[in-house]
């Protein structure tokens, strides 16, 4: 476990462990800023043949607070192969914490009108929610 991850609240660490157990992919914490952790997930699917990686922004108090935004290295493509334009902010300040790792595109998606998060296991649905937003974005 990285030093950054070791410093996370226990419930968020448990959520990350749960996500790793459900998805055979790289899940790690690359940064923490303004009470949000930048969680790298290496296989966020967009409905095309090649999955992509991205940093999902989870609050340190997850699941008591909601996810907010996605940062990626490249502009994300949707299931039709076109660029995702929904809430796309290239070079946004929110990329700052992972800019040195290539973070360059911020998608400012919020959990508005989404179901209330109840448990750490909900992190799996959160990633699937990001995937749906990418597919339809």
């Amino acid at each position, binding site marked *: 476990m990285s030093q950054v991850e070791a410093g996370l609240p226990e419930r968020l660490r448990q959520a990350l462990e749960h996500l790793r157990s459900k998805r055979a992919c790289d899940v790690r914490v690359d940064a923490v800023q303004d009470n949000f952790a930048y969680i790298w997930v290496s296989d966020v*699917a967009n*409905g095309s043949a090649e999955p992509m990686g991205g940093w999902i922004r989870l609050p340190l108090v997850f699941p008591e607070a909601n996810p*907010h*935004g996605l940062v990626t290295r490249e502009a994300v493509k949707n299931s039709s192969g076109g660029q995702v334009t*929904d*809430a796309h902010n290239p070079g946004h300040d929110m990329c700052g914490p992972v800019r040195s790792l290539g973070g360059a595109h911020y998608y*400012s*998606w*919020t*959990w*508005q*009108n*989404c*179901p209330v998060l109840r448990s750490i296991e*909900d992190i799996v*649905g*959160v990633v*699937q*929610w990001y*995937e*749906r*937003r990418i*597919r339809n974005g």
Partner: protein
Amino acid sequence: MGTTFDQTKATGGSSHRVFVIFVGDIEERWEEVNVPAEQIMRKTGVSDPQNFILEALDHKGGNPVAEFSSGQSVNLDAEHRKFFRITPGGGGRS
């Protein structure tokens, strides 16, 4: 005929098909071809299906190929209607 596994049972001279589907790891059996997504989600224990999306996958644990809100009907005889997952609905932008 779609990829949904179906089963024919003889019942007093007539027959009917049972569609066996999986929502995550939960198995469901339906005798209707067209089933409201709401009912499929409720059967897994989701009490507020209006807040979720039912996604049809291309294989178990695979990629979504279609999505259904709670008010939509799912044709279980269509292609890729055997494996599903339930994903949170909604979402905004800031």
